[in-house]
C-alpha cells in the first residue's frame, strides 16, 4: 500500500535509504531465528509442566515443545530478515520513500541482494531457482539411497527405520520442489517480463513467499534428527499420530509451505490479471502465462485444505486432540479427504505450467504458431475445473463412500479429454514445423513420450476394478513418476534450458546439456518401466525388502536410477559452469517473439525502459504478408533494448540503474 502514498508524502531523507532493512539479511534472520527458537524451546519446556494425566490422555509434551520451537524458528527467521518491517511501517504510517523502495529492490547491492529480503522479481526468480535445485538435489540423493537399498531383495543397506523415513522425506521434498519448480523460478522471473510488467503486483509478498520456503527447509530437514517421517509423504493418520518427532517437522513444514503457496499464488494471479501490458488482451497472452496462472490459481483454494489437515494433525499430536483417533470419535478418512482435496489438484499444479512452458517453446523451435490457441486455453481450463472433482480416486480402495467410486471414475476419465487436448496442441504445432532440436525442444519430445505413458497408466488406475488390483503397488509409484518427473520435471528442465540465457545472460552448454538429457531420459525410462513391471507382478509401494520374485525388475530400476543420478549431476555441473563461464547470450538467441526476449541482458532493474504495447500475439511465425505495424509509433521511438550488445552476464545492474527501484517505479519515477 505504501507505494501509492510515496508520491504524495515526500519526506526528508533524514536516514539512509532502506531504514532498518539496511541491517537485516539472511544472517540476521538465522541468528534471530535460532535465538527465538531457543527462547521458545526454553519457555515451552518451562511453562508446559508435564501434567501427570497427560501421559495417559495422549498429550505429548515433547511434540508441543518441538512444534513451538519450530514455529519460533520460522517467526524469528522471518522477523530477523525484515519480513515484518513492511506491515509494521504501514501500521505506524512510516511509508517507504522512493529510495527505500529502490533499496528493497536490491539496487546497487551486487550479489548481496540475493541474501536479503529483496523485492525485485528477477532476484526472487533466481532465488527460487537455486532453492528448487537444492531441494531437487537433496530429494534426488535420497532417491539414490532408496534405490540402492532396493538393489537386491533384502540388502539391509538402510534398515526399515531409515528406509521408511527416507521414503517419506524423499517424497515430500520432491513434491514440494516440483510444486514450485516452474511457477517459482519462471513464474516469478519470466512471467512479469512476458506480460510486460515492471515487477510483480506485490513485490514484498513475493519476497515473503520465497523466504518462507527458506525458513521451511531447516524445519523439514530437522525431521532427519527427530526420528524421520516414517509415514510416507502422504502422512496418513493414525500412523502419523503415533509417529516420532519427525512428523512434527512434516506438519510444520507443510503449514509454512501452504502459507507461502497461497501468498505466491495470489501474487502471481493478481499480477497477470491486472498488470499485463497495454494491448495484451487475453487472446494475445502467451500460453505459458495461462499455464502458470492455472497452476497457482488452483493452489489458492487447494493448499489451505492441506494446511488444515496438518493443523488438525498438530492438534492431535501436541494437544491430544482426536481428529484422527477412531477410538475417540476421530476418523482417518477425514485426513485422506482433506489431503487429496489438495493432493489431486496439486498434480496439475505441478504438471500444467511445465507443459505450458513446453508449448511456449515448441512454437519457437518449430517456428510455427501455436496450433489452436483456443484448444490450448480450453484444455487448461478444463483440467483446472475437473481436477477439483476427482480427489477420491486416490481413495477407491479406502472403503470411504464406495457408492461414489463410479462417479469419481467418471470425472477422472473425463480429464483425459482436455489432457488429450494438450497433446493435440503440441503435436499440431510440431506438424510441418522447422524443428530445431535444441535441449528445450528435445524436452518436448521426451514429454510426448513420457506423458503418454503416464497418462495411459493413469487411465488404468482410474478404472475402479483395475485400481483395486494396482493401488498401493509399485505400479502407482511408476505412474506418478511418469507424470510428475517424466512430464513435469522434464518440462522444467526444458524451461530452464530455454530461459537460461535470459535469466543468467549466458548460454547453457550444449554438449553437456545433451549428455545429461540422454542419460536422464534413458535412465528414467529404464527405472520406471522396471517399476511398472514389479508393480504389476505385485510388489507393494514403500517396502524396505521384497520377495525375490521381483529381483530382476528392481535391479533394472536401480541401474536406471543411477543413470538419472549421473545425468542430473552432469546437468548441475553444466548449469553452474555455464552460469559462471558460459558463452555470453545475445538478447534473443532463439528468435522468440514473447516480450521477455525484448529486454537486454542483463535485464535492467525496472525491466522495460519504455512500456511495451502489444499489437498481436506472440506466435506470428511464417507470415506470408509483411508485418502489420499499427498503431503508428510515437515520435522518436526507442527500440526496446536496442542499446545493448549482449551485455555482461554478471550479476550486476545494467547501465541505467538510476532510473528506478522496481517496487516504486510505477509511481515514483516520473517525479524524479
Amino acid at each position, binding site marked *: 500500500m505504501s507505494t501509492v502514498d510515496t508520491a504524495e508524502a515526500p519526506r526528508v531523507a533524514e536516514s539512509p535509504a532502506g531504514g532498518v532493512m539496511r541491517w537485516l539479511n539472511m544472517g540476521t534472520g538465522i541468528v534471530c531465528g535460532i535465538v527465538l527458537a531457543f527462547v521458545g524451546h526454553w519457555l515451552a519446556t518451562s511453562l508446559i509442566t508435564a501434567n501427570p494425566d497427560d501421559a495417559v490422555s495422549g498429550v505429548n509434551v515433547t511434540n508441543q515443545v518441538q512444534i513451538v520451537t519450530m514455529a519460533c524458528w520460522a517467526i524469528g527467521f522471518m522477523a530477523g530478515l525484515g519480513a515484518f518491517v513492511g506491515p509494521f511501517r504501514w501500521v505506524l504510517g512510516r511509508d517507504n520513500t522512493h529510495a527505500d523502495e529502490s533499496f528493497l529492490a536490491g539496487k546497487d547491492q551486487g550479489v548481496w541482494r540475493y541474501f536479503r529480503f529483496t523485492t525485485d522479481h528477477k532476484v526472487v526468480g533466481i532465488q527460487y531457482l537455486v532453492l528448487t535445485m537444492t531441494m531437487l538435489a537433496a530429494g534426488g540423493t535420497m532417491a539414490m539411497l532408496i534405490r540402492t537399498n532396493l538393489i537386491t531383495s533384502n540388502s539391509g543397506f538402510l534398515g526399515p527405520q531409515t528406509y521408511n523415513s527416507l521414503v517419506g522425506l524423499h517424497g515430500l521434498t520432491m513434491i514440494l520442489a516440483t510444486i514450485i519448480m516452474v511457477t517459482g523460478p519462471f513464474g516469478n522471473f519470466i512471467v512479469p517480463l512476458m506480460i510486460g510488467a515492471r515487477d510483480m503486483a506485490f513485490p514484498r509478498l513475493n519476497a515473503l513467499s520465497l523466504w518462507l520456503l527458506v525458513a521451511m527447509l531447516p524445519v523439514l530437514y530437522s525431521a532427519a534428527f527427530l526420528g524421520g517421517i516414517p509415514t510416507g509423504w502422504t502422512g496418513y493418520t493414525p500412523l502419523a499420530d503415533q509417529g516420532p518427532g519427525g512428523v512434527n517437522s512434516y506438519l510444520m513444514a507443510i503449514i509454512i509451505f501452504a502459507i507461502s503457496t497461497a501468498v505466491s499464488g495470489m501474487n502471481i494471479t493478481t499480477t497477470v490479471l491486472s498488470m499485463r501490458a497495454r494491448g495484451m488482451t487475453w487472446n494475445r497472452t502467451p500460453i505459458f502465462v495461462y499455464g502458470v496462472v492455472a497452476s497457482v490459481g488452483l493452489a489458492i483454494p487447494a493448499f489451505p485444505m492441506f494446511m488444515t489437515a496438518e493443523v488438525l494433525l498438530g492438534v492431535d499430536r501436541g494437544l491430544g486432540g482426536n481428529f484422527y483417533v477412531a477410538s475417540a470419535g476421530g476418523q482417518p478418512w477425514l485426513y485422506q479427504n482433506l489431503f487429496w482435496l489438495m493432493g489431486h489438484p496439486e498434480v496439475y499444479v505441478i504438471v500444467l505450467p511445465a507443459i505450458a512452458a513446453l508449448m511456449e517453446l515448441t512454437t519457437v523451435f518449430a517456428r510455427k504458431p501455436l496450433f489452436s490457441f483456443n484448444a490450448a486455453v480450453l484444455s487448461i481450463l478444463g483440467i483446472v475445473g475437473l481436477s477439483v472433482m476427482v480427489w477420491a480416486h486416490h481413495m477407491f480402495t479406502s472403503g470411504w463412500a464406495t457408492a461414489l467410486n463410479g462417479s469419481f471414475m467418471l470425472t477422472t476419465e473425463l480429464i483425459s479429454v482436455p489432457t488429450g487436448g494438450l497433446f493435440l496442441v503440441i503435436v499440431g504445432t510440431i506438424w510441418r514445423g522447422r524443428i530445431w532440436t535444441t535441449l528445450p525442444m528435445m524436452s518436448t519430445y521426451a514429454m510426448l513420450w513420457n506423458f503418454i505413458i503416464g497418462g495411459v497408466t493413469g487411465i488404468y488406475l482410474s478404472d*475402479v476394478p483395475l485400481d483395486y488390483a494396482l493401488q498401493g503397488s509399485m505400479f502407482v509409484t511408476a505412474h506418478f513418476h511418469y507424470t510428475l518427473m517424466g512430464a513435469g520435471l522434464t518440462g522444467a528442465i526444458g524451461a530452464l534450458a530455454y530461459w537460461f540465457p535470459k535469466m543468467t545472460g549466458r548460454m547453457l552448454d550444449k554438449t553437456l546439456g545433451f549428455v545429461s538429457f540422454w542419460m536422464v531420459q534413458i535412465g528414467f525410462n529404464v527405472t520406471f518401466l522396471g517399476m511398472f513391471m514389479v508393480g504389476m*507382478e505385485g510388489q507393494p509401494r514403500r517396502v524396505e525388502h521384497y520377495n525375490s520374485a521381483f529381483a530382476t525388475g528392481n535391479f533394472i530400476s536401480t541401474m536406471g536410477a543411477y543413470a538419472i543420478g549421473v545425468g542430473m549431476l552432469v546437468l548441475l555441473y553444466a548449469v553452474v559452469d555455464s552460469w559462471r563461464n558460459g558463452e555470453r547470450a545475445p538478447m534473443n538467441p532463439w528468435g522468440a517473439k514473447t516480450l521477455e526476449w525484448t529486454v537486454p541482458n542483463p535485464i535492467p532493474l525496472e525491466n522495460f525502459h519504455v512500456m511495451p504495447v502489444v499489437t498481436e500475439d506472440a506466435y506470428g511465425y511464417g507470415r506470408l504478408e509483411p508485418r502489420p505495424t499499427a498503431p503508428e509509433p510515437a515520435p522518436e521511438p526507442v527500440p526496446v533494448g536496442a542499446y545493448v550488445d549482449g551485455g555482461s552476464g554478471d550479476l550486476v545492474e545494467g547501465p541505467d540503474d538510476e532510473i528506478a527501484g522496481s517496487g516504486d517505479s510505477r509511481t515514483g519515477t516520473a517525479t524524479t
Partner: protein
Amino acid sequence: MATSLQPGERTHWWARRETREVFVLWAVLTVLLVIFSLTVPNALLGVQASNTMTAVERTFTILSVAASPVAALVWAVALYSLVRWRRKGDWSPTDDDGPPMRGNRPAVALWIGGSSALCLFILILGLAALQVAASPNQNPRIAPAQARNPLVVEVTGEQWVWTFRYPGNGGVETDQLYLPVNRAVVFKVTSDDVVHSFWVVEMGIKVDANPGEITTTQTVPTRLGLYNVRCAELCGLLHADMETAAHVVTARQFAAWVNANKPSAG
C-alpha cells in the same frame, strides 16, 4: 487445411506425402503396440486366481489396446517430425519459418470427438466391470446356493500381522488365509491400530483396513494354489514384512482344515 497452403502445395491433405507416411508409421506403431498389449500385461499380472483377477486382466488388455492408436499417433508424428522436418544446423534469423497454421477446425473436432468417444467407451467398460466387482457371484461354476451363502472371513490388520477369523465355521482364527475354491467369499476388513490395506495379489482384490470401520471386498477364488496376501498401505516399521499366504483348497480339504483348527473349548 486451407490455412496451411504454400506455393506448390495444392494437393488434397490425404494425398500429401507427410500424411501418407505418417499414416503408415502410425499403422505400424499401432500394430506393434497392440501386440505388446495382448502379450505383456497378462504375463506380468501373473496367474488369475479369482474371477476378479480374470476381469482385471481382461480390462487391462482392452484398455491397452484402446490406448494403442492414440499413443501411436502422437509418437508417429513426433518421430516423423524428427526425421523429416528436423533443421540441419542452428537456426538463423534469415531462415524461413514453418507454415502459419493457427489450427484446423476439422482436426481439432476429430481429436476431441475421438478422445471423448474413447473416454466414453472406457467409462462404460469400467462401470460394467465395477458392477461385476460389486457382485462377483456370477461365476457359472458356482452353485446358486453357494452364491447366496458366501463364506465370510473377518480380516483384522494390526502392526504387522494379518488375522483371519471364520465366524461361520466355528470362529476358527488363523494367520494364514484358507479358502475353498469356487465359493464366493466376502472379506470384512478392519484394523486394530493404523490403516493397512488388505491385498490378495493374485486375486486382484484390495481394500483398506481402517480402525473403527469395517470395509468389505469379495471375490470367488477359481484356482487351487498358494497365493500372496500383502499389506498395500505403509503401516510403520515392518510394513514390508506384513505378508502371509493364501491357500486355495478344495471344499473337502477346507472342511478338514476347519475341523482340525476349531477352538477346542466349545
